[in-house]
């Protein structure tokens, strides 16, 4: 695996750890964390702090006792489904991380993509609360139309890579764009680039055509 250069900031991870993000962001960050030892360490440190913040709380008054709660313990549980394992995508030639695999129902190769342009396709994965997560497929050498955001955009590179300004982003990198100035990621020439992205506000495209398309594609 190539070295990961771009990581989420400390404060982005802290917000993840403290539970302040919607599912779309959590999905993108958890996918990065599943391949990034450096960020996992930061998260461990932050969770330790969280444990201490909890320890230092002034106890509030509970409505029931431990025995009351144990009497409820026999009630049937709604189990949270377990993530599927990771699988190799034959069609796109990369390992689909386990947590993401659950959000494509274990069938990345069977995803239905919408064409945003001849060189850009997207698949919307989840719209939960305000945030949405989506996969973008970019043809080698082609660019996503210039866009800006009023909110935070988190993008995890799953396969291939792109350039944005002076920076290169490749597999495993997490690109955090919270600037208001428009940017235009351009896929590297050697292979298509596939990314997982979350935003909390619609992207603002500069061209007239993409803006007209926007309502249809939930981006």
């Amino acid at each position: 695996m190539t070295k990961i250069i771009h990581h989420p900031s400390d404060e982005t991870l802290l917000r993840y750890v403290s539970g302040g993000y919607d599912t779309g962001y959590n999905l993108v960050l958890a996918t990065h964390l599943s391949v990034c030892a450096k960020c996992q360490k930061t998260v461990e440190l932050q969770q330790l702090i969280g444990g201490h913040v909890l320890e230092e709380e002034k106890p509030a008054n509970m409505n029931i006792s431990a025995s009351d709660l144990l009497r409820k313990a026999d009630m049937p549980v709604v189990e949270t489904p377990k993530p599927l394992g990771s699988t190799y995508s034959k069609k796109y030639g990369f390992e689909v991380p386990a947590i993401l695999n659950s959000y494509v129902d274990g069938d990345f190769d069977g995803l239905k993509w919408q064409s945003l342009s001849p060189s850009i396709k997207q698949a919307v994965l989840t719209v939960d609360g305000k945030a949405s997560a989506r996969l973008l497929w970019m043809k080698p050498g082609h660019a996503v139309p210039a866009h800006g955001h009023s909110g935070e955009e988190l993008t995890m590179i799953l396969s291939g890579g792109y350039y944005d300004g002076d920076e290169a982003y490749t597999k495993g990198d997490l690109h955090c764009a919270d600037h208001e100035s428009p940017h235009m990621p351009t896929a590297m020439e050697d292979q298509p680039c596939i990314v997982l992205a979350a935003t909390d506000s619609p992207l603002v495209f500069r061209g007239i055509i993409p803006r007209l398309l926007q309502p249809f594609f939930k981006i």
Partner: protein
Amino acid sequence: MTLSSYSITHDAEPSQYGSAEHVRKQKNDNVEGASRSGADWALLVCAIASKSDANAFKSLFNHFAPRVKSFMLRSGLSPDAAEEIAQETLMTVWRKAEQYNSDMAAVSTWIFTIARNKKIDKFRKDSRPLPDVNDPSFAMVEAACPEDATDQSLNADKLYEALETLPEDQKQVLVLSFIKDNPHREIAEQLDIPLGTVKSRIRLGLSRLRDRIEIEDTKLIGQLK
């Protein structure tokens, strides 16, 4: 100054803290808390895992449930929602005690992460798995061999000492980050400082803590280095 004394708004309704019953409970708690170290909590969780020890559960419940509830109240949840999350969190401690690994985390850290997930689950509409880095079934990397595992409770103690040495302003934003929903913007507004200052205090605080305690690669293999 204790961590929980950091609060820029009101901690919770006074009624949550005012009753005689509560004061009595809190006293008992403090006595209990003072006599228990992180290792003791770990033994209690193991007692639940190995023999469904109800007394062990009661001790854990009495200590942690009121704190989870208080934490959630300070995060802005209603008393009902905070109570529910505290109950669900402790229910998970009872049911999933065997998943606790004392080599990996302090009990307070484990319970913190359970409560965090319960809070997210309460507000999300998705039925798919929570994207949670602590979920072992989604981790890509294998745990290191047990001999390599760090004593995480030692790290927790070290962290506590390290936190005490942090400048107040850095400690304050770190702690507040845990109880705000949109932490950095809200903290900036309430402390009346620029967003950039909040971010830089978080970075400075964390890097100081990193320097002071070493978290060894317990879960991770060095494949990315």
